[in-house]
């Protein structure tokens, strides 16, 4: 079976960043359209079965229905039979089911939160994160047709994971020795206390940033590191930096449309698997890939590590180039 999976999050692209960083709300009917383009493109590239996560907006059903009406759908597209909760658990569960079904590539439409949820449970299946908004650090802005082609190439096995994918790093958060959460790109430690509207944008509350990778072009809090030190995806280290303290000043694109000048300490690199111990002296919250997720309290003990336990991420250009060299597109 040359199968792929599609997870499309109906809730992505709508959060408070629409207000605080000049982003546009992403409408779900466009997500349906993107899914349709991925299906058609994957179908055209040899995929014979596609699994789609069910969701509250029925993105998968709508895509299938439309493609049946237009008589363009030739392959089996199946919506996973699972109960949905309308929250992040759906993504985690769908990822597991799709891996059990043996999909050769998992396409994820959503923001950092959605990709992070997939990354929590995915094992060896290559991942393509498709950004559906303006403010993402992990998923890429890329046309669905190209995504479908790359997924199709992975499904047909003409290129191997080793050749086309990057095994990503991630930031792991441990409390009392237990892994409690992860970030794909950055973990921000903030003095803010509550989850609220999730996104984090108030610079003055931030204490520290820990990154798995950093680059000035990778908009978000990781740029606070990235403007001083580039940390590439293939570098075997991460980094951390103290914020709102220290003698250095950097300017960094901490959010879309927002360049901020910030006082920082020295960048410190973190070797893979090296534990950074964090004993909070105040109650606050950790934001993972830009979303406030883990509240912490005085007296708790945390270990934060950068590891190579992230997902296999399909490098789209490389995959298409390799496929071309292998004659994939020749008839």
């Amino acid at each position: 079976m040359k199968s792929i999976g599609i997870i499309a999050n109906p809730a992505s692209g709508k959060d408070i960043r629409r207000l605080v960083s000049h982003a546009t709300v992403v409408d779900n009917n466009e997500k349906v359209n993107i899914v349709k383009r991925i299906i058609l493109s994957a179908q055209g590239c040899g995929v014979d079965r596609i699994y789609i996560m069910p969701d509250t907006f029925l993105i998968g059903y709508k895509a299938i229905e439309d493609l049946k009406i237009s008589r363009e759908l030739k392959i089996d597209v199946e919506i996973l039979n699972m109960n949905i909760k309308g929250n992040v658990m759906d993504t985690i569960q769908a990822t597991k089911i799709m891996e059990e079904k043996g999909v050769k590539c998992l396409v994820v439409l959503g923001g950092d939160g959605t990709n992070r949820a997939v990354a929590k449970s995915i094992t060896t299946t290559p991942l393509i994160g498709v950004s559906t908004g303006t403010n993402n650090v992990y998923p890429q802005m890329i046309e669905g047709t190209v995504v479908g082609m790359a997924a199709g190439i992975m499904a047909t096995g003409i290129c191997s994971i080793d050749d086309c994918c990057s095994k990503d790093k991630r930031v792991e958060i441990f409390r009392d020795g237990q892994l409690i959460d992860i970030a794909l790109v950055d973990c921000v430690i903030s003095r803010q206390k509550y989850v609220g509207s999730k996104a984090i944008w108030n610079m003055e509350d931030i204490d520290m940033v820990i990154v798995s990778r950093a680059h000035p072009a990778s908009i978000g809090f990781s740029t606070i590191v990235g403007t001083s030190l580039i940390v590439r995806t293939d570098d075997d280290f991460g980094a951390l930096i103290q914020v709102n303290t220290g003698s250095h000043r950097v300017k960094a694109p901490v959010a879309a449309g927002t360049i901020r000048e910030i006082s920082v300490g020295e960048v410190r690199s973190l070797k893979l698997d090296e534990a950074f111990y964090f004993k909070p002296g105040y109650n606050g919250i950790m934001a993972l890939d830009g979303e406030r997720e883990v509240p912490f309290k005085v007296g708790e003990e945390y270990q934060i590590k950068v590891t190579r336990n992230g997902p296999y991420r399909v490098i789209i250009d490389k995959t298409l180039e390799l496929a071309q060299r292998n004659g994939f597109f020749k008839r």
Partner: protein
Amino acid sequence: MDLSNEKLIQMYRTMKRIREFETKAAELFAEGRIPGFVHLYIGEEAVATGVCANLKDSDYITSTHRGHGHIIAKGGDLKYMFAELFGRETGYCKGKGGSMHIADADRGILGANGIVGAGHNIAVGAGLSAKYRDTDQVCVCFFGDGSTNQGTFHEALNMASIWKLPVIFVCENNLYGISMHQSRHQAIQDVADRAVAYNMPGVVVDGNDVLAVYEAAKEAVDRARNGQGPTLIECKTYRHRGHFEGDPTVYRDEEEVKEWLQKDPIPRLVEFMLDNNVVTEEEIKKIDEEIAAEIKEAIKFAEESPFPPVEAAVEDIYTDIVEEVRS
């Protein structure tokens, strides 16, 4: 930015006042002591509370048929509210409006409204007025998901946007337009998507998390005061009770109700406050007792108030004309 303990406690108090007011209203209605219809806000308290916590007395709101919560959050007096529900002379509207028409011009409450979708354009007018008079006032327009299928919604967003008016459109998406699930009454899941068509920011927040609502509303209110124009905030929420008291709610299944009851905004805030040492259990108990006493007092005030004289029926139609009484 972080919320002060004082603000958190104030928001708890508001939510609890709404909850208790509505719970009592349900009881009184069931006992036949309140005539007419009542549409209760139980379950949606975080929306009115989180939004109105950003407003001043001089700011405006327009409300809906499910308006008690908005009025309480904007500073309405429970005594006059109950008196109005009882149809008494001392009520906010001298007994002429009832549950669906409570207004308090002194607090910028431009009225609950019995017509679904009617508040949108009135809010635009109030926003225009604030801008015209060069004040820093804003107007919050509360409405449900069902009303976004009315033409007025689209007219209002369009007008507010072209004129960059200080209006915050707050959609309380409780998933149902009366009995019709949102998936059946509109081809979108997020009302916020509609903001795109009117060139304004649209944002979705968890309407059962008062802190999330507060944050989003704060940004939107700031934008409005700064002259940056309108915002559409969609709060995902749920009414614990039927569309109106007496609604058998055959259209929603028990599982769904159960799930949403678990997301009840009030225990969520309590848990956060206890967890962060904002208040103690004793302090909460004390607040609850104060509210219970206030409500008891308000009901007593209402029930002991006289009904209006029948001749009052012909007054207040115009500022200068009193209609003829029955001869």
